[in-house]
Structures are given as structure tokens and as C-alpha cells.
């Protein structure tokens, strides 16, 4: 067997990524926090935290609770606002060697539009990811992610003001994800990210109160992987013609392969980075090894392969 290096490159929303592995928004800070432990230029892309128009302090603590094979978070979109993001947070990524994707959130369509416009002016930004799915603020985007109508309106409005590649991140807290995915595609999104966190909560039985300051939070980590794989599978089966970025509980290359085989062109790593900071690197290496082992020349060959009988 020849030891040809497999081709891991993929295209998402018109961007060519060196490999299909990126961090998940909100788990990788502003991209620099993990730079000691992970070479940014080795990543398919760098995805930074949700950015809103005005600064947001975020929710009252506690913001994190561990749960079985997962965690709840209720950060509440803490961020310094798009002006500071553009001025201070993005410039250090200018030469990071990977495309930079900025996750955007807001309370109204106008908020998103304003953020998208401001980010469009930054040379550092390669793509926008619309966060239509944050469960952790009263009006932080999830309302847009629950019904096709409002979602389409949001995506169209952002689409109208940006020529950047546009990714829409969907909420899993819905009865059927396919109509939402379809609405986003029809409104002009170039790619879909799925999934954001599942809405959950935990109760402190001694204090008899919710553990999180925000009462509910978003469940992430390995616990949710079966739900995430199922949603990627469903959206892939609908054949909407845009690439999918799969995420939710990926800890290893094998987990990432479940998403790719289910139909994801790329994957994102969230909670796993907290546990093992170089998970992205391990996944990239593991995908390459899988390809070599199985004679797969390009990772693109196996996207959605589990749908073929």
C-alpha cells in the first residue's frame, strides 16, 4: 500500500479549509487562549466567540455545571461588543494562518445586520456564522432558530448586507430540524452548523435551587452526540445542497467520523477542548490515519457515506 498523504481539504461556503476540523464557537475564546497548546495554522478554521452589537456582561454565575458526560453552560453571550472585537480581538488573528469565522448574535434582526456590516469591514474575517440558537439569553437568538419564518427573515437580512461566506448555526431544540435548515438555505446561507446546545438544567438538592445562575443552560459534550449525529443525518438526507458543519460531543477522530459519515463536510470541537486542549490536532491526525488505513484518498469521498446502503 502506498503511503500517500490523504487529502483532508474541504470547501465550506466557498472557503477552502486545509482540513475539516475547527473549534466550536464559544469554546475557543478569541482564538489566542489556546495558542500555547495548539498551532492555529494547523486548524481548518478558527471560530471565535459570539459577537453582539453592544457589549454584554453575560449571565450571573454559576455559569457552568458538570453533568453526566456533559456540561451545562449559561455564559449569556458575554462579549465586549463588535467595535472592541474588531479593534482588539480580531487583529491578533490576522496572521494566524487559518480562516477566521466570527459567530454573530443579537436580540433583533437589526442587531445581527449591524454586526455583520461591521465585521464585513474587517480584513481578518473570512466568514460569518449566524448564531440563531443560543439558549442562554432571554433574547439571544434562539427565538430565531425555532421557527422557519423568523429564521429565514434573519438569514435574508444578513445575506443582504454581507458578501462574506455565511454559515447558519441551528438549534437542536426543535421538533424537526429539516424545515429550519431548508428555510436557512432558501434564505441564502452558504452552509449550516449543527448543532448548538440542548436546553437543560440541574438542581442543587441541598439548596433546593437551580444550580445555574440563569436557571437553564445549554447541554454540550459527549452526552449529546447521538442527538447531534441524528440531526446531521436528517439534514443530509434532505439534500439541501449546502455543506454541513457537524458538532456536538466530538472527543476523538472516531466521533468526528460519525458526523462525516452522517453527512457533515466539516466538524467542530467544543467541550472536548476543555478536557484535552489539543483535541483538534488529535482529530486531524486521526482522520488522516483513518483515510490511510481505509484507502480513502480524499476525506470528501466519505462525506455522507453512511447513507449509501
Amino acid at each position: 500500500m502506498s503511503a500517500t498523504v490523504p487529502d483532508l481539504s474541504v470547501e465550506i461556503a466557498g472557503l477552502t479549509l486545509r482540513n475539516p476540523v475547527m473549534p466550536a464557537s464559544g469554546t475557543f475564546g478569541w482564538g489566542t487562549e489556546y495558542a500555547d497548546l495548539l498551532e492555529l495554522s494547523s486548524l481548518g478554521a478558527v471560530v471565535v466567540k459570539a459577537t453582539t452589537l453592544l457589549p454584554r456582561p453575560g449571565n450571573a454565575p454559576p455559569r457552568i455545571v458538570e453533568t453526566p458526560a456533559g456540561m451545562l453552560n449559561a455564559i449569556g453571550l458575554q462579549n465586549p461588543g463588535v467595535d472592541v472585537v474588531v479593534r482588539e480581538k480580531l487583529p491578533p488573528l490576522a496572521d494566524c494562518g487559518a480562516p477566521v469565522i466570527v459567530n454573530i448574535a443579537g436580540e433583533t434582526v437589526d442587531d445581527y445586520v449591524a454586526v455583520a456590516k461591521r465585521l464585513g469591514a474587517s480584513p481578518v474575517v473570512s466568514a460569518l456564522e449566524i448564531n440563531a440558537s443560543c439558549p442562554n439569553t432571554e433574547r439571544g437568538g434562539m427565538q430565531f432558530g425555532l421557527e422557519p419564518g423568523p429564521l429565514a427573515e434573519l438569514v435574508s437580512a444578513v445575506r443582504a448586507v454581507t458578501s462574506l461566506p455565511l454559515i447558519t448555526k441551528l438549534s437542536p431544540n426543535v421538533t424537526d430540524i429539516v424545515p429550519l435548515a431548508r428555510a436557512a438555505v432558501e434564505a441564502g446561507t452558504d452552509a449550516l452548523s449543527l448543532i448548538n446546545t440542548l436546553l437543560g438544567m440541574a438542581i442543587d438538592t441541598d439548596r433546593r435551587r437551580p444550580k445555574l445562575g440563569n436557571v437553564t443552560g445549554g447541554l454540550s459534550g459527549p452526552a449529546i452526540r447521538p442527538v447531534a449525529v441524528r440531526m446531521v443525518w436528517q439534514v443530509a438526507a434532505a439534500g439541501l445542497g449546502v455543506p454541513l458543519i457537524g458538532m456536538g460531543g466530538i472527543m476523538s477522530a472516531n466521533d468526528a467520523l460519525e458526523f462525516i459519515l452522517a453527512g457533515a463536510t466539516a466538524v467542530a470541537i467544543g467541550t472536548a477542548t476543555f478536557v484535552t486542549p489539543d483535541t483538534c490536532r488529535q482529530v486531524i491526525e486521526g482522520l488522516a490515519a483513518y483515510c490511510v488505513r481505509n484507502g480513502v484518498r480524499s476525506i470528501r469521498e466519505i462525506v455522507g457515506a453512511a447513507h449509501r446502503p
Partner: protein
Amino acid sequence: MEQVKSRITTTHAEGADCQVLILACPSIAAATQPGQFVHVRVSESADPLLRRPISVMLADRQAGHIRLLVRKVGRGTEALARLPAGATVDLLGPLGNGFPFPSAETSGDILLVAGGVGVAPLVFLADTLQTHRARFRVCGLLGGASDEHLPVWTELAGRCEEFHVSTEDGSAGEQGLVTELLGEHLAQDGTAVVYTCGPRPMMAAVAQMCAEARVPCWASLEQWMGCGVGACLGCVVPAAGGDDFLRVCKDGPVFAAEQLAWEALGQ
């Protein structure tokens, strides 16, 4: 900051519910400052999932060792305490800001006020102050529920010029709270600065007493953590004045008492 697999060279039980681990990790031992912590993976399974932050109690740069004092309060700390010598532990560190050292001009008493397992980072601070000593005296005050809840007190005592203990049941030292010892000390003049680590209500009381006495106070905070490196914004505590938040893992764990909204900190 590094992620390393580190071998436990020795481990022994301490007091009612603690364990002392000595870990071989030369690079972390060389880099860690007093008040910094390591983020420890406590299982290879997905449950429990997250790392646990543990202060470095002492770093022996020659030997390439660090020492941790672990109080068994739940599954993670119990798993750590159960590990035998020879086992390997995955560490991320050193993390956090550490205690600021008193300036060279500081004179008077440096007070270390510890509650229970909060003694750990103060042992390291006392150790370092020994070598930096100038015109100040280091004075340790340690409180616990009983004589069984004063882990590694000799480690602190041996590094202080003056040392007092209080226990709630009177089984060792003065009967009462460590804040009473602090009160006596502040009543005399001459306290230059206070460093404290322990349960939140204790630290809140210490902070308030220091504010009243106009003595600078540094407190080492705890909060449940995700990343430990400042990326997730999960470990925040409310900042004083306004509705901002500070990250315990990156902006702390050591804060000047006046940085924090103590009344909003809760338990």
C-alpha cells in the same frame, strides 16, 4: 502553560479528608508561582468529564516536583486521592495569575489567613516569602473545624515567624473562627498586607475587616471551571461596581479584595 502527563511519586492521607500528592513534572514545577494552579484530569472516561483546578502547594524546582493538597469533596477529588504512587495524572498548567509579591519596601507583618484546604497556596507563598524576605515578618493564621481539619498546618507553621491556629471546637489552638485571630492582629498596628484563601464566607469577612483596617487584602477565589485558560468565560465572579465579571482562571484566582462584589459572591 503546558499539558503534561505526570507521575505520582508519593501520596499520603492528611487529616480527616485530605490527601497530599507529589507529582513529577519538571516543567510545571519550574514555571509555577505561588497562587497558581493546575487543571487536573480526574478520569479517562467521559464521566466525570471536566478537569478539576487544584492549587500548587509547593514546587520543588530542583527535584522537578509539585505538591498538591486535595480535599475529598466529590467524585473527582476522591478519584485523585485514590490514585496510587506510580499512576499518571494529566495536568494542564501552571494557570492563573498567582499572588503579587509585596514590594521591596514593605515593612511590618504579612498576614496569611487560611481556612482548611485554603492553606495550600499560602504554604507556597510563605515558602517564597522566606527567600524574598526583607523588612517584613510573615505571620500565619489558620482555622478549621477541628484539629482533624488543619491539613499540612506544620508546613505553614514552619514557614512563618508567627503562627496561630483556631478551631471551631477548640480541639487545637484557640476556640473560634480564624477571623477572630485576624481581628486581634489587626487591632495591633503593623499589618502591611493580608493574603487569604479559604471558604467564601471566611474570605468575605477577612476582606471586610481589612477594608475597615485599611490594609490591602488579596484573596484567592474558587469557582467551577470549564477550560481553565480564559476561553469559555465559565468561571466568572462578579466584579465590584457595575455588572462586569472577572474570570477566576485567568484574571484570578487571586484578586485584590476591592476588585470583587463580595455581597454578590454567594457561597
